[in-house]
């Protein structure tokens, strides 16, 4: 169990150096923004028979996650960091895209990665092989990263200001859409081998993302994948979504992605200054 937050989870901690995040973290546990409507809410039912009464709660089910996400978001903005939450079904090429991106940007930016997988440290090992810090979070039975575990991950990574942080979520097109991690943007990666109908089959994810990357374009000649139709479906679910097509393997289209990343980093710097 976590001594700082009492969260009962056996996750990675560094409680030895207290800093802003931990303080705020503790604070949010003690004084969460619950609304207790004690006066209006507690009217008794079936008087005389039982002690039953009504208690009004009026809380978002994900309120706790959202409070941690706000903490993370504040942490990022106080340090001028850009955090991106990469979501997709398993095997779309997230880790390959990251290693290829890091090789191209690591001399220009300070980069780190939080890797979420149910099991193994394989993806974090692949990232570390590029020479940047990576933290593996294994979710076990859980099928998504939550803001609390990412917050503790930030404590142990202890990144410099103006870092670019990629959070590779668990491969799953369903529930990571509901869990805000405090990121600036969700980026959904769809490989062309998955079929063009995914945006309407899994609309929540494409609705929540700001950018869609169509990956593995090198395979297009061997498939019937209809890119235009796929993009139309994505815009149907989310008219604001931006789209980039690339091949992490051959490097085709990578420049547009690097340009997008540099522009987003510049925005963080402006907001920070």
């Amino acid at each position: 169990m976590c001594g700082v937050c009492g969260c009962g989870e056996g996750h990675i901690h560094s409680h030895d150096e207290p800093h802003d995040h931990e303080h705020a973290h503790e604070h949010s546990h003690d004084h969460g923004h619950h609304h207790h409507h004690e006066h209006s809410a507690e009217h008794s039912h079936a008087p005389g028979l039982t002690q039953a009464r009504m208690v009004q709660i009026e809380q978002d089910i994900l309120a706790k996650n959202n409070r941690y996400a706000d903490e993370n978001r504040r942490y990022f903005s106080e340090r001028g960091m850009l955090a991106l939450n990469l979501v997709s079904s398993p095997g779309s090429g997230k880790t390959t895209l990251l290693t290829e991106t890091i090789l191209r940007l690591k001399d220009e930016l300070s980069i780190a990665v939080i890797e979420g997988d149910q099991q193994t440290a394989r993806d974090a090992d692949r990232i570390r092989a590029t020479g940047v810090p990576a933290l593996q979070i294994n979710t076990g039975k859980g099928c998504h990263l939550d803001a609390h575990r990412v917050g503790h991950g930030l404590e142990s990574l202890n990144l410099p200001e103006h870092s670019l942080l990629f959070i590779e979520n668990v491969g799953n097109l369903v529930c990571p859409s509901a869990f805000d991690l405090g990121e600036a943007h969700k980026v959904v990666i769809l490989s062309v081998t998955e079929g063009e109908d995914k945006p309407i089959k899994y609309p929540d994810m494409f609705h929540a993302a700001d950018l869609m990357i169509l990956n593995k374009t090198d395979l297009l000649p061997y498939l019937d994948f209809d890119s235009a139709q796929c993009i139309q479906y994505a815009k149907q679910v989310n008219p604001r979504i931006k789209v980039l097509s690339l091949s992490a393997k051959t490097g085709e289209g990578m420049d547009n992605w690097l340009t997008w990343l540099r522009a987003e980093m510049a925005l963080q710097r402006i907001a920070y200054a």
Partner: protein
Amino acid sequence: MHEMSLCESVLQIIEQQAKAQQFAKVKTVWLEIGALSGVEADAMHFSFEVVMQGSLADQAKLEIIEVPGLAWCMPCGCEVLVQQLYDECPHCGSHQLQIVDGDQMRIKELEVE
């Protein structure tokens, strides 16, 4: 699986409230679930029973209040009912819709003793 972790969050909220509002047993839980929240009522009922086992809400009844999806159509400037995130405006066919209601998942009320 999604519904499972949502029910775990519901239980955490209930346990917190049990201390704050001094109750030991929960008989009924009312959730407000939007049609666009991505939550399946059936899966929610199933997960609820499993997750609440052995807790202060063991055997509690789950009542789901369904909230219809409501969006604001930018071209028309009016509010329209939607079933899915990829629906089009029934008036003008546009997809420039902004969700205004029906994406919530909230715990509303408890019957306790």
